[in-house]
């Protein structure tokens, strides 16, 4: 279990490194307050209008749902793949069934036109 401390330690060291460099950049960088127009979002020179944090297309949400389903499947597949040499034919049949059910879901989504970007 020493590995987890390497991960935590590297995360800590990395975040410190990033903030150190950003702090250094803050010290040596040029700054001025500017005027009102400096803080406007850059939208190709046109003043921003409407609600920026408004609604976005539903297709992003559907892709996220599909992703969750298949990513959980991948976690199962990794563990299955490690012990596959002990399972052999039984493992192949059971995992084949599991993936088949998921592929039915994908086929349904495909048929419903979810995978076609609009």
């Amino acid at each position, binding site marked *: 279990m020493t590995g987890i401390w390497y*991960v935590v330690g590297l995360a800590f060291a990395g975040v410190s490194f990033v903030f150190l460099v950003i702090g250094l950049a803050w010290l040596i960088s040029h700054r001025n307050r500017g005027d009102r127009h400096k803080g406007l979002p850059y939208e190709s020179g046109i003043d921003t209008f409407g609600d920026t944090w408004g609604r*976005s297309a539903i297709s992003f949400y559907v892709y996220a749902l599909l992703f969750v389903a298949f*990513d959980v499947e991948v976690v199962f597949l990794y563990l299955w793949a490690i012990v596959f040499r002990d399972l052999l034919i039984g493992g192949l049949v059971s995992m084949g069934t599991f993936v088949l059910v998921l592929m039915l879901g994908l086929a349904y989504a495909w048929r419903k036109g979810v995978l076609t970007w609009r």
Partner: protein
Amino acid sequence: MSAATPAGGRIRSAMGLMRSFPAQFWSRLSLQERLALIFVPAAIVAGVVTVLAVVLLGPPFLDFLGANLPLVRFAVAATAILLLTVPTAFVLIYLELKVIARMNLRIGPNRVGPWGIAMSVIHGFKVLSKEDFAPTGADITVFTLAPVVTYMASVMTLLVIPFAPGLIGQDLNIGLLYFFSMGGLTVVGLLMAGWSSFNKYSLLGGLRSAAQIISYEIPLTLSVVGVIILAGTMSMNRIVLAQSGSLLDWFVFKQPLAALIFFIAATAEANRTPFDMTEADSEIVAGFATEYSGMRFGFFFFAEYVNVFIVSALVATVFFGGWTAPFQWPWAYNLNWFNPWSFGFFGWLAIVLTVGYFGTIFFAVFARLFGGREWGLWASMGLGFLFLLVVVAGLVVLAGFIAFDWVAGLVWFMAKTYAFVITFVWMRATLPRVRVDQLMGFAWKWLLPASLLNLFVTATAVVLLNR
């Protein structure tokens, strides 16, 4: 208007500087003065602290280090990994500028240093000294944390990449899974950046990159399941060891389809050119990075190039044998006759001085002969010294390659990795960007079924052939 001499003007500005000491002192300094005022005291403090630590608590300090070797190993590994990212990004940026320029029949950077090799260092300093600016409506906390998350997501993955035998941050037994889980955190950083910028282009870029990366994450992770079945482990070191032997033991020959899928999906994961929808500059300005500037943008930049390196390293590790040599070294050398300690300090001093003096002159003559009149005497001497350093470094690496396992492993690993880096650059120079609907459709309708097919064909082959 004023008839002040330059000297008078300087004195007056210095007086003004002192009068406004706390308030405007720092902001009136030039970049060089600021760098000097930061680095000189920092270097003095670091030097004094080091000397004090060694002198005052020398033996107890060394005993403490000896008793906590894992701690020392961690400190060295973390420092090496973090410091590795900076030159890697610099080399990749220069490589990309130069290689794409040559492919476009341009010359590319050639002003800063010989052949423009210091170009990306200058880029780094430029980014460091630019104003770090946040737009008015932005969510500052998330805006600041987004590059941190993105950069960390790529740096954390370097922990499990085996550079050479014994040269690995930490050989986790879930190495490959750890790699993908950490690499997947990139999405969070990009979404944070897109959402917090208060800009419609940023939000759209963030959402697009999230949709793209999570779509390609699935074929990316599925394609290596076949490799895990064959190797029987997720530890990166043991995956490399499973491919040791000859060229034909590499997994690319047992899993060609998986290697292809992995390469394509990895291109999309690293947001590289046929799939760089996230920063499609002709459509959504710069995507999630539109509102970023200064060092916060710099870390996105770093993360992107480190990602290219990491993805190439992973392709080399998982499918092309990592640090293993493609063929056995045909001749055995014995370097035991060479004992570097036998010369003593003054012997080494004599060797270094003699070789340095005559070697510099030798190469300077060549620089003078082939460089023509544009190289002055001191410039050609400097270039000769540079050539000498390159030759000596090459000889040292060659000796290490023959004598040490890890040097040979590192050389092979870097050669394979940079071959894929060049391939990514080549693709960027050659291929046009794909359309967003084609991009998403390709991941779900082609790559996902193909990777599942590869997986079950591999599993069936293992069942039929092995036992």
